[in-house]
């Protein structure tokens, strides 16, 4: 019997809301910063080095015939603790292969909709980090929006669907994760699109993502219409698909709004953010389905594991959209912000092509939560 489980198996359980008990054996600072979350997940933290002389601390609280999944940073300590638990008579102890590092890289694809003219729209949920990316598929062609660094996942998915990736699009210059957009376009011979205003310092060629310049996917009429929506970054651009799906990037989330400070320009961009959220988006149809580039809380996941909401509903219940007074709004998005994402400046430099860290360094730079939102 195998005594390890993969991130793929664990992701399915989280999405399907199966009862899961996790023992996280990383040290408590790391655990408090970032951990596996899910509606059906119960998690306890006990650093592995406290269990070397015995697992009593666990045995006192968990039945030995209960299933328990041990998780650590990279997958080494969790195997050791799983063995220790087995020696103490635990019959259903498992370890998570690759630990939190692998969990951070897992993408779970969820179908959002069938599009007009036979295409489909998929959302890729990065459970370990709260990042959302998208693939528009139509007539053997595909476009990927806000691709993560793990480009192989999109390539394999495209291969399974029998489509070729012709466009990769970043709604903005990301600060919380390393974009896979440029690499994916290189691998597939596609075109990488980025808003000009976020690309002033980039060291590579790209196509401008500009309002009014549609991007056609396949031979059909699925079009991606960029809508300039500054605030999180000066160049942030939203995309509209099928006149029904609004990809908001890091401007508007389901339970929160984008933060304007990750490039050190909160004061400059707060006005843009307000204009986008309180005017530009408000002029759009209430029936649009908002598809953001992030989520913060696991309860934002719907029953099918996707993250989405009707724009009109967000104007009713997203606390970031209920602040009438402009000064109060300014205060909310510039003061008492959560800590900035780990390595956000180096991640921006990497996404501009100014830094080229090795693959292993890139993985390390991304460890931790995304923290791109302001919660009102």
């Amino acid at each position, binding site marked *: 019997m195998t005594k390890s489980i993969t991130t793929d198996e664990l992701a399915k359980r989280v999405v399907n809301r199966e009862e899961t008990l996790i023992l996280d054996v990383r*040290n408590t600072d790391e655990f408090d910063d970032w951990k596996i979350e899910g509606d059906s997940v119960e998690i306890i933290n006990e650093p592995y080095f406290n269990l070397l002389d015995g697992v009593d601390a666990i045995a006192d609280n968990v039945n030995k015939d209960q299933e328990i999944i041990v998780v650590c940073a990279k997958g*080494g300590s969790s195997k050791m603790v799983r063995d220790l638990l087995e020696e103490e008579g635990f019959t259903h102890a498992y370890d998570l292969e690759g630990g939190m590092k692998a969990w951070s890289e897992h993408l779970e694809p969820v179908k959002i909709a069938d599009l007009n003219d036979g295409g489909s729209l998929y959302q890729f949920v990065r459970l370990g980090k709260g990042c959302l990316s998208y693939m528009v598929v139509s007539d053997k062609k595909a476009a990927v929006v806000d691709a993560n660094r793990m480009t192989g996942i999109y390539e394999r998915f495209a291969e399974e669907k029998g489509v070729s990736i012709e466009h990769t699009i970043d709604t903005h210059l990301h600060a919380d994760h390393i974009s896979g957009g440029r690499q994916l376009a290189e691998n597939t011979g596609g075109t990488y699109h980025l808003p000009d205003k976020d690309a002033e310092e980039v060291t590579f060629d790209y196509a401008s993502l500009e309002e009014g310049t549609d991007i056609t996917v396949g031979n059909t009429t699925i079009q991606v219409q960029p809508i300039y929506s500054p605030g999180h970054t000066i160049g942030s651009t939203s995309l509209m698909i099928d006149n029904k799906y609004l990809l908001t990037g890091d401007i508007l989330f389901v339970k929160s709004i984008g933060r304007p400070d990750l490039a050190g320009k909160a004061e400059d961009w707060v006005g843009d953010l307000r204009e986008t959220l309180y005017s530009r988006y408000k002029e759009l149809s209430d029936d649009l389905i908002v598809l953001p580039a992030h989520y913060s809380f696991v309860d934002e996941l719907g029953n099918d594991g996707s993250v989405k909401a009707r724009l009109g509903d967000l104007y009713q219940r997203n606390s970031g959209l209920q602040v009438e007074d402009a000064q109060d709004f300014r205060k909310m998005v510039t003061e008492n912000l959560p800590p900035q994402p780990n390595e956000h400046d180096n991640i921006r430099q990497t996404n501009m092509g100014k830094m080229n860290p090795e693959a292993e360094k890139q993985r*390390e730079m991304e460890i931790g939560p995304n923290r791109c939102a302001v919660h009102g």
Partner: protein
Amino acid sequence: MMEAVKVLDAKGMACPMPVVKTKKAIEEIESGEILEVHATDKGAKSDLTAWTNSGGHELVDQTEENDVLKFWIKKS
């Protein structure tokens, strides 16, 4: 700096071995004596610090040179 009575070479070892070996090594020295640990696993930095605190020992000093992490731990 006080002289270490023992040097543990944990270079090239992956988590959890640096902490496991450190724990064994510290059992072999006397209270008040200092153990010097060399490691290359980046996780050792936070883990050895946390382990030292949880065991009541004292992290007297730590350095990082050419990707080698060095720790001096005084046994409680």
